[in-house]
């Protein structure tokens, strides 16, 4: 049986550092749903401890346990002992693959390799926004491109309204997600993206997806990109918007944008300009609960993922009574829209999409009333 787990210095330190206080139970979306200690960060740290000490044999079902994590990082933020369990989970997923346990993301890697996107889509929507040269390049990512097209359409419209001189490229999956699920980034795809982006002569790369943002910003495979990388909320924060809403608005921090990238204030600065009636959910910013989509969890456990989104959504509605829920992440948006029940009146948008809608209402109010 394969049992070649490395347990490097970092891993060993984290394992002994976990004091099993279980404080992470309060914040783990999967524990919240299942009430099973194995789903929680503390449970995973205990499995690692026993694996390290040779008390627990590495079996298929042990390997499986490490797939149950959205890498939302809420445990990390709330761990009094300074442990980063999701980092250990990610590193373990890699070790497991190295030890011969292929997981269900192997197929995803192959799909990405073959089609250049996570869904195996063969045709890419032509947004009609491709130019030769522009100072800004916009990168959408797979989820927006293939699963939230209407939302993307609105985001593009907003950039047009704001007269941003941008172009799009023949993008392929940034493929960073493979690093989180046990595999490695696809170097050739990264190179293709870099070449396409550089061709535009742009100085700034704007991403709508917070995950792509992180990959471009942090992953060594993109170190030669040579462009300033901005998430779209960072890019838009200093714009003047000539629209407003009186509706009660709230905001969900995407884990990849908030805890992982530290971008909390920019979206709020934009929201404050357009929505005086803004309320924060109880669990917000560093403590925002995960929507359940991240870390490959949605791909692997779709049903549970939507149930997590349902919990988060109900909680937000209960806390805030908001009419509009904003976020700025195609994955969160997609998961929330799937989770929303018909009787729930709340409307869910990406912030940029909502802005475009406000502009539209302003120019054709009659339409809105109809």
């Amino acid at each position, binding site marked *: 049986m394969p049992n070649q787990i490395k347990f490097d210095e970092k891993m060993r330190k984290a394992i*002994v550092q976990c004091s099993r*206080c279980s404080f992470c139970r309060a914040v783990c979306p999967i524990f919240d749903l299942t009430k099973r200690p194995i789903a929680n960060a503390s449970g995973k740290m205990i499995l690692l401890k026993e694996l390290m000490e040779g008390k627990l044999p590495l079996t298929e079902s042990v390997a499986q346990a490490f797939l149950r994590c959205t890498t939302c990082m809420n445990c990390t933020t709330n761990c009094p002992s300074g442990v980063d369990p999701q980092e250990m989970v990610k590193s373990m997923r890699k070790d497991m693959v190295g030890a011969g346990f292929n997981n269900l993301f192997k197929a995803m890697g192959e799909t990405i390799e073959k089609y250049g996107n996570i869904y195996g889509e063969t045709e890419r929507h032509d947004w009609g926004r491709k130019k030769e040269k522009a100072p800004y390049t916009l990168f959408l990512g797979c989820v927006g491109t293939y699963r939230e097209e209407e939302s993307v359409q609105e985001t593009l419209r907003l950039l047009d309204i704001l007269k941003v001189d941008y172009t799009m490229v023949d993008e392929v999956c940034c493929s960073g997600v493979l690093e989180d699920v046990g595999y490695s980034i696809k170097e050739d795809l990264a190179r293709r993206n870099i070449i396409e982006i550089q061709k535009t002569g742009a100085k700034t790369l704007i991403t709508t997806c917070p995950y792509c943002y992180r990959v471009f910003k942090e992953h060594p495979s993109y170190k030669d990109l040579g462009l300033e990388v901005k998430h779209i909320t960072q890019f838009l924060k200093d714009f003047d918007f000539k629209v407003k809403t009186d509706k009660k608005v709230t905001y969900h921090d995407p884990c990849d944008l908030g805890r992982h990238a530290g971008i909390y204030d920019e979206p709020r600065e934009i929201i404050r300009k357009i929505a005086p009636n803004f309320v924060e959910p109880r669990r917000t910013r560093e403590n925002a609960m995960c929507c359940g989509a991240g870390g490959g969890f949605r791909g692997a456990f779709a049903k549970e993922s939507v149930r997590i989104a349902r919990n988060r959504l109900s909680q937000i509605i209960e806390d805030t009574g908001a009419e509009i829920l904003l976020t700025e992440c195609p994955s969160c948006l997609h998961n929330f829209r799937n989770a929303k029940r018909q009787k729930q009146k709340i409307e869910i948008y990406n912030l940029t999409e909502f802005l475009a809608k406000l502009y539209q209402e302003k120019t054709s109010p009659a339409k809105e009333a109809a």
Partner: protein
Amino acid sequence: MIKKLVEIVGQDNFTDQLEELVPYSYDASMNVYRPDAAVWPESTEQVLAIVKFANENKIPVIPRGAGTSLSGGVVPIKGGIIIDLSKMNKILEVSIENRYAHVQAGVVCDDLNRELARHGFIFPPDPASSSVATIGGNVATNAGGIKGAKYGTTRDYVLGLQVVLPTGELMRTGSYTMKCVSGYDLAKLFVGAEGTLGVITEVTLKINPLPRYAMTAVATYARLEDAGKAIFQTMTSGVIPSVMEIMDKVTLKSIRENTDIALPDAEAMILTETDGFTWEEVEAQMEVVLGILKNNHPVEIKTARDEKDRLNLWKARKSAYATLARVSSSFVLDDVTVPISRIPELLVGIQGISQNYGIVVATFGHAGDGNLHPQILYNEYDPDQVERTHKVEKEIFHLAISLNGTLSGEHGIGISKANYMTLEHDPVEMDLMRRIKKTLDPNNIMNPGKRALD
């Protein structure tokens, strides 16, 4: 066994998968033992059926909440079935007019308090783990917390319980009233029993109005005796502060060196708070406390009344546990408690023991009720340090008992302190405890192997 348990709780609420049982082999102590199965019952009827079955077949059952115990209390030393009550987490009734809340055992403390806060009420015991700890676990360990001196511990709030007895009967005991002397106080027998007498499934709790205002002060002392005097003079002044915490110099040093919190190099720091219904009341109390703090030669005193300043003063105390947990990989966190005036002796004694064995012990805790937390820092993979740590612990227990104290103020005995039970309790008392246990649980199925009862 598998078939029967699955029949009772359903396939989804049962496991005997090794990897799922591994996390159930632990709590926050160093004890490790495997259970044979775990179940997540969703109703009292299911718990009843499980216990009945276990009793007939003499299989140990271990009720478990969030598993934050620091004593091995929920670690299945004799194997058996873990009954995880996390899914029984409904707040059944909040009766403001009658001042009680009736909840299932798996309700998380903070969830209850969030609900109560909407009505301006609170269940005061606030263990550090309140964000995850369950009410059932609070009751089973008689959890206390920072506000014990003024607001008592869980015991003071338990009005009634629903308990599944080891013999497979369902009992409702206690009342829904503020007073009750009808029969033996059986409800209190189960408070702090660490699941050795039955499975608590529902709890009726007295609730308090939420104090509206609070004022905070921090004082540092160059001499431990001065700090000690300040504490017991305050506690006997007629004012009972809602908070009276102490941190020793090892704790202060660790916080100073490992965080950006600026702290003076002192022997001890006291953090205190007065609370009440009006500002006048809060201020008048604080005036008395400040007078005493000042009289005992402090190095420095700071006060705060608005939320931001208060949080600032709380920062050091709140970070104590986390800082120590980060400084050292492994630690034992104890909870010896002594009469209030003996606190300086306990602190000095612990420092002496620590030096004798070359093991770092940082102490902080709830000085207002004499409950201190020596956090013994060591490396669990160094056998020599492990041995010295055991010796340090043993000496601390002996010291506490010699000061008329107790082994445990709020964590419980579990496995870790079971060997020291006879140090505190004479043979007559031990014998009576064992007889009570045997009467209720003739087959010794309820959380066996704990607190030297079998």
